[in-house]
């Protein structure tokens, strides 16, 4: 079944209309030596068989009832209306709104998305989103490079995958990357000051960082700006409901992983990278941007704008090649933010914060599980692990719990825990009981 409406007879008629007798004639331009006999793929299946098979495959994954793992992907409550609205076929089966007049709906949702990102980050200009948080960080690094300044400096307290992604982009571009060590679970600002030089285009930190700790972004900004470089802060969007915004901290760009804003875990994708900058850097921003203007009758109209930045105009002068992005995820994010609302997002953040604190205390009270760092944390924190972490993970998995992520810090076995609003106090109490048993 290949979803082709035209029947074999109709196809013959159509062939006749173009003066051909059989379909093979249409492929005569392909050298016969290159023409394929047949694909070695299984035969067609009915939808009924396909969904059966894929359900069986999905069944081989474990859906954990309880989850204390984050590290870049977060389980949150997703209101049902969010999923259903983002699933409206007009949104799902459209492409980039090149034809503004018949795409005002999509365009307006992107404009609203940009507004939400600006309001969350305090920045002036947001694009329509990039592939994911790590990609946003890499694009931000690229965006600030110029002939004079091409070096990127990254804190080693950022998520490893983000660092690895930035590294890939720098390596391909042939530009320098320096990594700054941490001290007590946060970026070592003295080391940073040394690393940032007059070749440095930008510095990237994460807020909260990989260990869950809230960095002193203001001081970091001072250090970075003193050297004439730009500060890019990768931030967790829900925490922005409560934490000082990148703008307030003096950052030049705010980027991050939008997944917590209404996207399911989905084994890592599709997610959403958000990017926002100050007005001054508006034209450096990669990706789509929607602007508000009017039509000849003076009606508000939304349109893709500032396209001179983009690959289809700048071509080989473009610093980014992004074309298709994650529009449906951006739509999801703006609907999520509107569904939770001004107070609701604060509630979610408050839950994360408070329950993480509660969990940290409960876990740290278990023998050998003390907190690894002292800094202020949002919804993630690191504890020591007195036994092999696999022992702990196995004990938890037996109870349907995905434990924190095992990490090794300076040779020490640790666990990076995550707690969000979906974790109940009972779950946390249960967790600490299981830990207690496991280390007995």
């Amino acid at each position: 079944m290949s979803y082709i409406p035209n029947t074999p007879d109709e196809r013959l008629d159509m062939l006749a209309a173009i003066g051909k007798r059989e379909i093979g004639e249409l492929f005569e331009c392909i050298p016969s030596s290159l023409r394929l006999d047949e694909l070695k793929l299984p035969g067609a299946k009915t939808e009924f068989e396909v969904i059966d098979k894929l359900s069986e495959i999905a069944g081989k994954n474990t859906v954990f009832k309880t989850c204390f793992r984050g590290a870049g992907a977060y389980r949150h409550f997703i209101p049902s209306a969010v999923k259903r609205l983002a699933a409206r076929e007009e949104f799902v089966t459209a492409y980039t709104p090149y034809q503004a007049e018949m795409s005002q709906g999509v365009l307006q949702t992107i404009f609203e998305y940009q507004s939400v990102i600006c309001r969350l980050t305090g920045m002036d200009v947001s694009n329509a989103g990039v592939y994911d948080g790590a990609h946003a960080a890499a694009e931000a690094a690229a965006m600030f490079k110029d002939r004079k300044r091409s070096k990127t400096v990254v804190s080693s307290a950022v998520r490893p995958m983000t660092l690895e992604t930035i590294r890939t982009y720098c390596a391909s571009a042939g530009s320098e990357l320096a990594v700054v060590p941490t001290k007590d679970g946060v970026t070592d600002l003295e080391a940073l000051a040394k690393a940032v030089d007059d070749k440095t285009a930008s510095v990237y930190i994460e807020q909260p960082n990989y260990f869950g700790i809230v960095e002193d972004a203001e001081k970091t900004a001072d250090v970075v700006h003193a050297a004439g470089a730009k500060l890019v802060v990768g931030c967790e969007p829900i925490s922005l409901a409560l934490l000082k915004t990148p703008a307030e901290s003096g950052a030049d760009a705010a980027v991050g992983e939008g997944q917590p804003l209404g996207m399911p875990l989905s084994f890592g994708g599709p997610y959403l990278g958000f990017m926002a900058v100050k007005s001054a850097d508006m034209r450096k921003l990669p990706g789509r941007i929607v602007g508000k203007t009017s039509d000849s009758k003076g009606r508000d109209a939304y349109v893709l704008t500032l396209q001179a930045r983009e690959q289809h105009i700048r071509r080989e002068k473009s610093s980014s090649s992004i074309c298709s992005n994650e529009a449906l995820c951006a739509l999801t994010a703006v609907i999520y933010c509107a569904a939770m609302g001004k107070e609701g997002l604060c509630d979610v953040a408050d839950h994360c914060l408070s329950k993480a604190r509660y969990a940290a205390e409960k876990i740290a009270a278990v023998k050998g599980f003390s907190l690894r760092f002292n800094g202020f944390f949002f919804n993630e924190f690191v504890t020591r692990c007195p036994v092999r972490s696999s022992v702990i993970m196995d004990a938890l998995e037996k109870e349907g719990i995905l434990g924190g992520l095992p990490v090794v810090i300076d040779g020490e076995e640790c666990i990076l825990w995550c707690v969000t609003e979906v974790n109940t106090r009972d779950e946390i109490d249960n967790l600490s009981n299981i830990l207690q048993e496991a280390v007995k």
Partner: protein
Amino acid sequence: MSELIFDKSKAGRRCAVIPCRDVAAVCVPERYRREVKAELPEVSEIDLVRHYTNLSRKSYGVDNGFYPLGSCTMKYNPKINEDAAELKGFTDIHPLQPESAVQGCLEVMHTLSEYLCEITGMEAMTLQPAAGAHGEFTALSMIKAYLLDRGETSRTKLIVPDSAHGTNPASANMCGFTVVNIPSTADGIVDIDALKNAVGGDTAALMLTNPNTVGKFEKNIEIIEKTVHDAGGLLYYDGANLNAVMGVARPGDMGFDAVHLNLHKTFATPHGGGGPGSGPVGCKAFLAKYLPNPVVKSENGIFSFERPEKSIGMSKSFFGNFLVCVKALAYIMTLGAEGIREAAENAVLNANYLQESLRGTYDIPFDGPCMHEFVVSLERLKRDTGITASDIAKGLIDRGMHPPTMYFPLVVHEALMLEPTETESRETLDSAAAALKDAIAAAYDNPQSLRDAPVSTPVGRPDETAAVRNPVLKA
């Protein structure tokens, strides 16, 4: 009417609420606290639902009608694929679960990779790239790593035909290559002489879309291949147009060393208003060790992740747009070997049928049989009537269809690029042809109607100049 969600906000309104906090409250110390709350909208659920339902009704997708957006393969997106991607066993899986707890996800990735290898004639595959352009960047990074690894530091040039999509040169630039543009022939294909002149010891690779963006198969592909390889360069295949040839011919067999695919085009995953897509990269064995980290391997029926020996690293977090991959896999399983080929055949048939229907009314700069798409030029029309490709496009909106791609490829002036795809019926093609002809007739009879078009939409043409001059980018 087109009020923003913010305009509908009223202090104190609530939509989704979460349970009461069941632990003690924690305060954010002042030095970390944001000064004022983010001004997110405050709306009730009914307002939320009406707002976005209404906006959806001001949008247009494949489910609403014909969408022959050339180069974008706006084929029908089967609903069963959405069901597959909504299975809890896929959506509720944390990407950092232990491998033993994600064997199903790994099986999906492994199976899809194998299928895509077979379809492209490649020997290894990564699903990590999130879109076509991302695939380009990834593959060029691999090529760069390979060249550096061999010490071929002087191979800094990427040859790109002038008909190439903008992402090609842009991705090349991101990877630090110098782009060498080569012209097309009057037939719309690679100018072999120009290519021969361009290649040399500094050639890293040629990026080629085949069939290319004017809808022609590069019939000299064997010469092209030899020319580039003989010069020590590599061949990169932009798979955006694979829908024309899948099951019929394979980039691998044509001699390409690396390829990206657009699952959101060729493999029927929905475009989502701009994304998410998925841009897997396939390569020949000698490039496999440069693939992004990680790849999935299978041993005795157990799947696991592995870092390729000389991996370029990650090009984004995790493993790609996984749910998009699930949809593409469901699609390939449904079509099977025969269906894949049939899709290509009928895509080409439909394009030729539509092209034939327009011949005489529309100028076809590169005439003759096309592959899955073709380009028409309205240069003459513009000269005769002042009506532009854009005017015709806007006129088509009033005639009930989504316009073709405009002004691309750049090598054709006043271009419209039509890609009907295989999932359109003959009736749809016939009525589109009628609309397309009617618009041309209007250019002569009533050009003002086209300049005023569209009138059937919630707004008319936006003032783009004003948008750029005085950017209003947020509320």
